[in-house]
């Protein structure tokens, strides 16, 4: 049942022999040890598993491993470099836009995808784009503030 799947993961080429029907989420978490991407429902309903596929936010729990062949995948682990934080991560930290933090990687990946196509989203656009991500702790106001903060930081550059 194993298929050979090659794709770019966090800017490095990887090649895996896995069952192509397996959800990308579990390949990332179990086979590759990238546990920053979280399981929250496995049904595309919560956004905890959000990763970027060619720059677009997708739910990795609903993404068969085979479908990412030849594509570029980015996970939360890719965002920080040399110990420094990505501006979106920094904005989440500065606003303390989390409580238990379980939704945070998915929120950051969704926010990152939003900001890369829309550098200055309105409140309405944030709500539109982010409503697929659940924060059960109810930290939405601060997450929205963090997105605005990251957008403002980008604007200054």
């Amino acid at each position: 049942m194993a298929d050979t799947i090659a794709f770019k993961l966090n800017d490095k080429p990887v090649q895996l022999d896995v069952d192509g029907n397996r959800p990308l989420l579990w390949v990332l978490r179990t086979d590759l040890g990238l546990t920053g991407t979280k399981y929250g429902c496995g049904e595309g309903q919560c956004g905890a598993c959000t990763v970027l596929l060619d720059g677009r936010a997708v739910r990795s729990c609903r993404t068969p491993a085979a479908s990412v062949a030849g594509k570029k995948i980015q996970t939360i682990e890719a965002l920080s470099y040399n110990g420094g934080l990505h501006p979106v991560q920094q904005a989440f930290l500065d606003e303390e836009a989390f409580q238990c933090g379980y939704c945070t990687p998915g929120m950051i990946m969704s926010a990152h995808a939003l900001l890369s196509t829309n550098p200055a989203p309105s409140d309405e656009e944030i709500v539109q784009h982010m409503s697929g991500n659940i924060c059960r702790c109810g930290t939405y106001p601060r997450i929205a503030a963090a997105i605005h903060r990251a957008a403002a930081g980008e604007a200054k550059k």
Partner: protein
Amino acid sequence: MTDKLLNAELEQHAVDRLRHLFEVNRRDLFKFLGAGIVVGVCAPTLLSQQSGRGRSSGDATPADIASWLHIGANGKVTVFTGKVEMGQNIRTSLTQQVAEELRTPEASVEMVMGDTDLTPFDMGTFGSRTTPTMGPQLRKAAASAREALVDLAAQRWQVDRAQLSAANGSVTDSKSGKNISYGELTHGEKLVKIIGPDAPVAAASQWHIAGAASPKVNGKAFVTGAHQYTSDITRPGMLYGKVLRPKAFNAKLVSLDSSAAEKMPGVKVVRDGDFVGVAAADSETASTALATIQAQWNAPQQVSEAELFAHLKAPGASANSGNGNRENGSIQAGMASATKTLSQIYTAAYIAHAPLEPRAAVAAWTDNKLTVWTGTQRPFGVREELATAFHVPTDRVRVIVPDTGSAYGGKHTGDAAVEAARLSKATGKPVKLVWTREEEFTWAYFRPAGVIEIKSGVHDDGTLAAWEYHNYNSGPAGIETFYTVANKRIEFHPADSPLRQGSYRGLAATANHFAREVHMDELAQLLKMDSLQFRLKNIADPRLRAVFETAAARFGWSKQQATPGRGFGIAGGFEKNGYIAMCAEVTAGPSGDVKITRVVAAFDCGAVVNPNGLRNQVSGAIVQAIGGALFEAIHFDNGRILNPHFRDYRVPRFRDLPEIQVELLDRKDVPSAGAGETPIVGLAPAVGNAIFSATGVRLRGLPLMAQALPLQSPAR
């Protein structure tokens, strides 16, 4: 990985020699932590008498140490507490309090939390107890450690201790200007101090570090995805487990055919009574194997949602009246004296905690000793559960709680821990078990549903004449009315719940506040009085008045004029020593759709420890409350849950978010109360009352949007 390597790694976690640390076995203690100063704090006896305390023979002390801290070389402070972090931010707020009293930078303080081998017994992290109990205990330990350090410096320099002061991790002699760090002072010392629960501490008005907005400890690990929740932990050679679930609650296994699963390579099937589970090298293989198992279950006929409220109220369903029953004056006389009376019934549905991290556990047996990592609010309770389930003494079980993906009262039990441990025992390998969302929605437990009946009477001047209150099943928390009324009877009637039910953030205080505060609104309407004025007329407690007045002022309550489809509501209360009042604005569309557009909350929980974390908690509680207020409900039929997915169980999302304003009434003169729960209780009634103001429709059941909402003219 070989077994040898596995054992070597596990050994790092095998800390038998630490077992009796808190019995002040000096040699072991200092062997583990190195020389230094140790201060332990005795718990108030009430807390130590709770169940679950496995006392071993040969206790050297009353074993009532609730927490302790160690100051070692480099001035590093290690604090041990059985409390756990699950998003309520106590790792940070407790660190602040220790740093405050010890007068040392927060960065030098490390909290070891929720590890049954390392931390003293704690009955659990719930009921908003950490801030009022653990906070003061740790402040006392830290204060006492600081004084011991000053003593050491005085001895060393042979000077009067009065001329010494402690600050920034060191002691300074004001006369000579000499300075010595805590680390140097503890060097070679082996000092143990046990202090009582009433050692002195600084007043909140003197705080420098506590009381300020400290950033979350380890915040960076959360934004980088580096923090390891239970579900992220792996052990060498670990397998992934899945459990076969019955087709309905209370079902008995009649027959089982697991032959196909057993034939799958690397799959182990485990059967023990009605427990059937599988373990495999990855979770998908385990799921696939599980799906091949043919099982027949025999399930009894069970109460369904449609009959729920009648069932809870049925005479046979309620046992005797439980606790929470109070009676004063005479209801009969009170009602007779009233000019207006009202009798209404309120209901609340079962709701789910739905923590984003489902229940999970990693279990490993080595040498007949069990170690389990699991997200639970009761590490010692779960240790007990495991010891009982596997017939081993509690000292053979270690429970470690990584900072958890939230719980909200939903992670008191060790279900996943027991299951993982069973599979690990059978396979001889560490096993990770993570519940699916569907399992989480089905096999956890729920906030109790309930029926609340209120009969009341008022005088023309707006004072309450009588108050008769019956709560069926939902619970006694927050049942007492805080309004002044001479004649009252308040009873809680436990019932036989068709669904497994248990703790939930705020417990029954949400349902009781909903019923009481909606009823008060109905009385105000009956009297044609403003609902704020009517409340104030019946409130004696100045702190409660203050939150109502503050919320109303910030909201602009007196200036608001309802129009069709747009209304305003107010509600509030008192719970867990915190005072809350909320004003809400809603819009109701012609289709009956309700949107909460603005919420203003005023909250008084005594002296504020961390305003930043507190605001996050309060606003988070308000957002979470939107779900239970408007749309969250577990639907069930004959022992089955009908909506065990986020698709059909709606939780608050970005689009449901109102504008939220939180006013904190920082009361430096009163002890800090916990704040994780109380802010959740005010929203549902404020919103229910606002819907009435917008539409003229009085909704008396939670969730409010379960009922159709015919649009009528506004009520005020």
